[in-house]
């Protein structure tokens, strides 16, 4: 009986001894995340860019906007898109509601060129192009965004009629994906 108990004790001891070798294991955990493509929001002042007087003493259109005119505006100090994008720039001409019956001498429309510079990307469009222009941004971009207006023009050297003129430049930045 004592012998049987001893054997049983030894067997139990042996089984307790080998148990840790059977508990080894491994697990691999994948760490994943995403970065969604996006652009920062573009918020601009509602105050219009005042281009000043459009005519000189002879009533003809000025060759360049007046010295005190606001022909440049920084729209954002650091605008960014973290993926390729397109910028659509549209410029509507400067017009006045004041009509003229002498259309062979006068016009109520003044065109101009709008140029956008966004860091190392730039492009321009004339207000004569109704559909605007698309500027490709082939990679993520970040930097200051500036709008410049230049080259006032009228058809056939007509004189602009007197009045208040207004126009608009519209920018739409969309991710290319």
């Amino acid at each position, binding site marked *: 009986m004592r012998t049987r108990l001893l054997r049983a004790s030894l067997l139990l001891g042996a089984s307790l001894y080998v148990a840790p070798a059977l508990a080894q294991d491994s697990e691999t955990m994948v760490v994943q*995340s995403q970065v969604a493509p*996006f652009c920062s929001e573009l918020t601009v002042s509602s105050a219009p860019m*005042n281009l000043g007087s459009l005519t000189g003493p002879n009533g003809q259109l000025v060759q360049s906007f007046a010295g005190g005119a606001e022909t440049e505006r920084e*729209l954002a100090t650091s605008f960014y898109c973290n993926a390729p994008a397109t910028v659509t720039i549209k410029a509507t001409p400067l017009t006045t509601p004041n009509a*003229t019956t002498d259309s062979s001498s006068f016009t109520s429309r003044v065109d101009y060129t709008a140029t956008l510079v966004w860091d190392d990307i730039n492009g321009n469009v004339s207000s004569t192009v109704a559909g605007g222009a698309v500027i490709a941004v082939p990679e993520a971009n970040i930097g200051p965004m500036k709008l410049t207006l230049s080259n006032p023009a009228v058809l056939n050297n007509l*004189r602009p009629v007197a*009045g208040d003129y207004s126009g608009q430049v519209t*920018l739409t930045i969309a*991710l290319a994906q």
Partner: protein
Amino acid sequence: MLHRLKSVMAAVALLALPGAAQAQSASAGIDLSSTVYGACGLGTPDASVLDLHDLTGPDGLLDPAKLGSAVLATATIADAWCNSPHSLSLQSTAMTLQRTVPYAQPAYMARRVTFDAKLIGWPFTATIRPHNDNDLFTIDINSPYAAPAPGLRLQISKLQTLNPGGAEQAGLMLESGNYLGTVTIILAAN
């Protein structure tokens, strides 16, 4: 346990997504304003003096050739324009003897001569016939206008002598001397 870890990782990633200041697209409209002030312009006339030469015929009366509607002289202003509603004025003084005469004007003599000064090339033909100094004719025009080529033309015709009272009277003898009158064209933006 593995699923729980993945859930935690995904939650962390969601927290890192952009906030309200980021978007799939951005747009903005920049308003522009400018002004064209009302103005008018008149170029330099091709003649600043319209010489009607000798006013009299052999009988000392006003030359009959100068009485009618034939144009005696013309001045042209090539560049005349107003870019807004405006007024057109003609200010004119009758031709007047330029020397001082040391006696009263006899009843049968004339020292002043009137004329038609007709302005052509504007939406309305304007005519002034001065009997005095600085007679004025003004008309308002409610739209911009520019004179087409050859431009604004001032035509002088229909001379007639004036009596001392300033009334037109035919058959008066003109006293000798130089006669001078004026016509001033004024375009003013309203």
